[in-house]
């Protein structure tokens, strides 16, 4: 391993995410949220009039909607005051467009992504990469062979200009309208950055495309928007990673993800979330799936102070299917409230949800999920499995599934278990010469294996590293 890759050594995993860069920007919006702020952001981006109108409409909806406070056992959001965050920071990058060569980036930004290992991963395992720093995508590149086939992978702001019709039709209209929830409305008002992915009919993008989101400044909010359109018979795997250094003030991440899965298309969306533990992670992610299409959500929620995230899938066409795989790991001071939502709106639809959660050192995990089977969605099936592992008596693990079944010709099953780490398992491993920490680490790795094995190998390794890091934090 060369010397500039030292940060990739196992022991330095924490340092890989924790470093801070001096805050430098060419444009920074005032704290808080007013119509003026939004006009300024929109103008700075050179947006068409219709987008500004959508932003302003979303702002109105945000101001009308109450803060969610009455969900049983939900994370405390009282600290989240949008008037205290900086909604928009344009990093100091010379070109207004994102660059397609890492060497064109300012040194400190390039160094950030080097340390996170993104350019290295791009060389080895990815079809394309986008990297967002603060509010803007600073790097975007995709292998030429995909471009030739008509695949589009660009930053969202660019898409508004270059693929205006597609964006206008799909952007926060039928998938995630701003009226969906308060933070979707906030997102609709001040979104910035993110990715646009378009895969033409019958095109299979063999290697994943990745976006990486990095917040560097204290007290900022990141609101990237991801729009994926997979046409009939196409396939794509999108991966997002996120991290930020820890500050004392809170950061807010409120992303929006919209996925359109065409007839017989297949989209996999994987997230490894490692926000710093002062970040509120309040996202809205949704997929609309046509006949025989397939949506897969794979999420590892490791970071953040509080997460409220329930990726949802609407199975619209006959034979559509969904697969959710979720891992949540809550350590000290963390409240990870996550789950899944699936609407079965057509016959012969199928969903499977697997959730694994681990809580320790006073952390709280909650699985909150909804499965709705509409009248007429006959011969549909759903299976939900939630397993929770608890390390100690300060931690909390909740499971709150909701099932609404309006159709009789269905097969609905939900199962959940909660338990502590098995003394006998630990004893067995210790008797084979492992120490207590290693034994527990191994048990946790085994517990989440059904999920890590679904991830590309680099991410499985990454997730395991993060888990080990979390474990070391307390046990070491």
């Amino acid at each position, binding site marked *: 391993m060369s010397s500039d890759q030292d940060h990739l050594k196992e022991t330095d995993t924490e340092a890989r995410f924790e470093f801070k860069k001096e805050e430098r920007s060419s444009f920074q919006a005032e704290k808080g949220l007013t119509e003026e702020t939004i006009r300024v952001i929109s103008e700075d981006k050179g947006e068409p009039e219709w987008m500004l109108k959508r932003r302003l409409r979303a702002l109105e909806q945000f101001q009308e909607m109450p803060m969610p406070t009455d969900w049983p056992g939900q994370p405390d959001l009282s600290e989240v005051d949008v008037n205290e965050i900086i909604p928009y920071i344009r990093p100091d990058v010379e070109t207004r467009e994102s660059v397609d060569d890492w060497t064109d980036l300012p040194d400190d930004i390039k160094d950030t992504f080097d340390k996170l290992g993104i350019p290295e991963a791009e060389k080895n395992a990815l079809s394309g990469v986008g990297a967002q720093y603060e509010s803007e995508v600073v790097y975007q590149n995709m292998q030429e062979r995909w471009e030739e086939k008509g695949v589009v992978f660009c930053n969202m702001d660019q898409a508004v200009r270059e693929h205006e019709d597609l964006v206008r039709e799909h952007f926060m209209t039928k998938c995630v309208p701003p009226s969906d929830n308060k933070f979707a409305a906030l997102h609709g008002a001040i979104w910035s950055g993110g990715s646009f992915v378009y895969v033409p009919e019958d095109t299979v993008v063999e290697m994943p495309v990745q976006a990486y989101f990095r917040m560097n400044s204290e007290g900022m909010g990141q609101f990237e928007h991801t729009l994926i359109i997979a046409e009939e018979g196409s396939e794509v795997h999108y991966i997002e990673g996120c991290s930020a250094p820890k500050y004392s003030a809170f950061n807010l991440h409120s992303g929006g993800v919209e996925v359109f899965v065409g007839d017989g298309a297949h989209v996999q969306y994987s997230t490894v979330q490692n926000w710093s533990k002062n970040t509120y992670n309040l996202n809205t992610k949704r997929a609309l799936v046509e006949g025989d299409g397939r949506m897969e959500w794979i999420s590892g929620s490791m970071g953040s102070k509080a997460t409220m995230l329930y990726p949802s899938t609407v199975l619209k066409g006959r034979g559509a299917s969904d697969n959710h795989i979720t891992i949540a790991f809550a350590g000290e001071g963390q409240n990870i409230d996550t789950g899944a939502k699936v609407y079965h709106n057509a016959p012969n639809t199928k969903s499977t949800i697997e959730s694994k959660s681990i809580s320790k050192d006073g952390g709280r995990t909650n699985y909150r999920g909804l499965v709705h089977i509409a*009248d007429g969605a006959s011969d549909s099936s759903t299976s939900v499995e939630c397993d929770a592992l608890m390390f100690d008596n300060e931690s909390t693990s909740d499971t709150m599934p909701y099932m609404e079944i309006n159709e009789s010709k269905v097969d609905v099953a939900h199962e959940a278990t909660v338990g502590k780490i098995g003394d006998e398992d630990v004893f067995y491993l210790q008797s084979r010469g492992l120490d207590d920490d290693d034994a527990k680490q191994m048990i946790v790795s085994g517990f989440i294996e059904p999920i890590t094995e679904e991830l590309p190998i680099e991410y499985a390794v990454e997730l395991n590293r993060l888990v080990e890091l979390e474990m070391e934090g307390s046990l070491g």
Partner: protein
Amino acid sequence: MSTQVPADLSEATVHEIASSRDEPDWLRETRLKALKAMDRLEMPDVIQTPGRRWTNLDQLDFDELADPLNQADDTERVTDEGVEVLPFTEAMVEHPELLQDAFGSVIDPERDYLTALSVALFTTGTFIYVPEGVDAEDVTIRTEMNSRSLFSHTLVVTEDSSSVTILERIDSGDDDVDGARYYSNLVEVAAGENSYVQYGSLQTLDEETYNVSLKRGDASVYSTIDWIEGNIGSRLTRSDIETELNGDSSEGRIVGAFFGHDDQHFDVNARVWHKAEHTTADLVTRGVLDDRARSVYEGVQDVGRDAWDTSSYQRENTLMLSDDSEADASPKLIINNHDTEASHSATVGQVDREDLFYLTSRTIPERDARNMLVEGFFVPVFEEIEVEELREDLEAQIAARLRK
């Protein structure tokens, strides 16, 4: 609050009820306090998901439903040796202190709007007292409701090392009240150390009656509280069955069965709180839905910080016989102690096609085959019932509904 308050719901009404029953001052005060609290109290919690509210309790129009001064019932009480089974009015004379200590000790009269309403207005009810060491069986309370509205309050106190099995049977009488009616039933069980209570209940109210029932038990050291509830009748039932496992090594079981047809709505809730060490809970609910019936189920297993060595299990299974029915379920685990073995499962489906095929291939007509399978589906519930009369009654009610 948008709820319509009963027309003659006032302090005067409460005084009139209390005076006519010759009640002691503490009970009168409790009623008046509950009445007053109604101004600030909310309806019981109902599950909400985006765009949907699972049960609409605001539809209860008490202006029309409640007629507090004309409550009438016909209640028969069967006792067993050594057990006191008394109407409230008699218990006030014979066990004044016991009654005063226990009343409201398990159910907070000001827990929600409907509970407070019931405490303010109840005119019937039973006090069951099982002295230390007494083993009693088949204590029976049969209540017929004979008025527009009826509010009932039952209190069970078991002393150390006693045991009792209780059957509560609720039905509508042959009176000539037309239109919607309201039945409210509060049951408190205070189980003494090492005592055992099985409280089985079956309601077959007529299908114009709104039935609101709250049953709650307080289990002390080594004690066991078993609840069994069968819901066949009523237009809408909101039932909450709850046990607090407050004593070390206490146990709780909540077993439920329902069979809905036409446009019946059952909102059934089973909740258990583990608050001491070595406690065990088992929640089993089985339901069948036909026609346009709808069921809503919430099960909660709450394991507290101090509940070391907890075992907690929950199963809920619903069979749908009709495409127009709806089954909603939310089994919840809330775990604050890691020394816990907890699981829950819920399923919704229809009668197994292979089972049906097997039986029809044995020349059993399809309808009969289906009925056999539905009756078989309820067997895990029947097996928990210790009072034979209750088991036979529930079996007969289910059989009758299948063959109507």
